[in-house]
């Protein structure tokens, strides 16, 4: 399975590859269209990466858990579910509409990687001064939509791992904020459409609004990364409604490959 989008240079490579494939498909003497070479892996080095419209379970509903999506920050690509008990992935999106985020930890009973070699963990970072710009009370509707600039500010401000390893979540998930739990989350879920009382709930009810809260990820192999999630809707709309298709995750992450906790990473690898 291919990675949806990585850096601009990777895009360029993919466009060339795609053009090659299209040209090959147009050839009359194509010997075997099934015998396409798999896309070569591109080495992921320390740096900042943006992933747009990561295809999770776009057929999910509000009753059943979505099909989990496993993602490798180390390799910047989707990992098949058959490899969930390996160290090949770092975060999983699962639960209702893929809205819960799980670490890969072989000793964490509720990690999908349970029983495997993963040493991963998650930690949600909150900045009070940023939160106050869009949010008053935990569990209550947002006072306004957080601007995209706040997401980038929170991401940039996170320059190191702010806690010791024992503070990482290893056996549960980072979920929606104060929804069915008393815990802080990565997004606010407006069940009734309370943020928009003048609009019908058929348009604004059951909408998930990402919050500018970075997630520190200890990868399955033990490196550190930071992730900011922008949206779980196709096209990452800033003001989503029910017309937007769920199950498409847009995020930005920075990974440190040298084993340190230095997350003061700004460069997008060439």
């Amino acid at each position, binding site marked *: 399975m291919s990675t949806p989008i990585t850096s601009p240079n990777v895009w360029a490579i993919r466009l060339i590859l795609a053009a090659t494939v299209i040209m090959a498909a147009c050839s009359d003497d194509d010997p075997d269209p099934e015998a396409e070479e798999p896309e070569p892996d591109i080495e992921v080095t320390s740096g900042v990466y943006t992933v747009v419209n990561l295809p999770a379970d776009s057929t999910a509903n509000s009753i059943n*858990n979505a099909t*989990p999506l496993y993602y490798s920050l180390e390799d910047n690509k989707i990992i098949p579910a*058959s*490899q*969930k*008990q*390996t*160290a090949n992935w770092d975060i999983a999106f*699962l*639960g209702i509409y893929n809205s819960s985020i*799980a670490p890969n930890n*072989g*000793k964490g*009973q*509720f*990690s*999908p*990687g*349970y*029983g*495997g*070699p993963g040493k991963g963990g998650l930690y949600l970072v909150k900045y009070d001064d940023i939160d106050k710009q869009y949010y008053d009370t935990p569990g209550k509707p947002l006072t306004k939509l957080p601007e995209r600039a706040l997401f980038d500010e929170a991401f940039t401000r996170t320059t190191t791992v702010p806690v010791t390893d024992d503070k990482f979540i290893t056996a549960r998930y980072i979920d929606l904020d104060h929804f069915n739990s008393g815990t802080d989350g990565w997004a606010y879920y407006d069940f009734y459409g309370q943020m928009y009382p003048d609009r019908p709930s058929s348009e604004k009810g059951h909408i998930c609004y990402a919050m500018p809260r970075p997630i520190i990820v200890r990868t399955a192999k033990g490196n550190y990364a930071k992730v900011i999630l922008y949206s779980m809707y196709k096209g990452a709309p800033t003001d989503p409604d029910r017309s937007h298709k769920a199950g498409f995750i847009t995020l930005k992450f920075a990974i440190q490959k040298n084993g340190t906790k230095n997350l003061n990473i700004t460069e997008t690898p060439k």
Partner: protein
Amino acid sequence: MLIAIACTGTLLTGCTETETIEPPAQPANRILTYTVVNTPDPVHGAVNDNDSTITVYLPYYYYLSLMQTELTVSEGATVTPDSGTTLDDLVRVIKGDTVIRYTVTDTKGKKKTYTLHVETQQPALEIDEITTDAAAPKEFASSYLYQEKYEVYTAVPITGKNLFKNIGNQTQVTVTFINEQGTEISAVDVNVYSTTSITAILPFHWQMAPGLYRVRVECYSHTITIKNPIRIKSPQ
């Protein structure tokens, strides 16, 4: 005087020529180590050269579905499958449905083949009969749509011993219904309440024709098909 005689005797004995016998050379087509690496801590297998086996005691509570291994062999030898090869569908290997053999070839081409055994020591699965009187199969109506839009599911309660609760966000128990022609249909869902109690959700009536069905329960590497069938009838 006596001490002097004793010393002389010892010196004479010390001059006796001794013969050094070299131990027989080890075959050069051996597996030296076998390690499972995709577990929270590495699990080392026991390599037995006498009966050409590798035995891995893999804790069942890891519920591993695949196994990544590393092995070392005699110097210069090669092995197939190679070190680092992933064994997919591990449950079939545990059950013995798939046999994995490693062949080591030394530098002169001499081969030795080892057979892999994976022991999980999973506690024996027990499933109680749902129908206790074979002459009167217990009846369940298949699931249906109320007023053609509301899903109404039928749950078949199943009891037993050593069923597993959900681990790693996924139930470890599957239930399959098998009709008299041998056609299989999976339960829509399985809810595990404890190690002794689960429910299996029946498919809709258009997916599951009325009739007698045997029930098969699978829990990781153990499988039981209970003896007496149940009867599926159409919903009212």
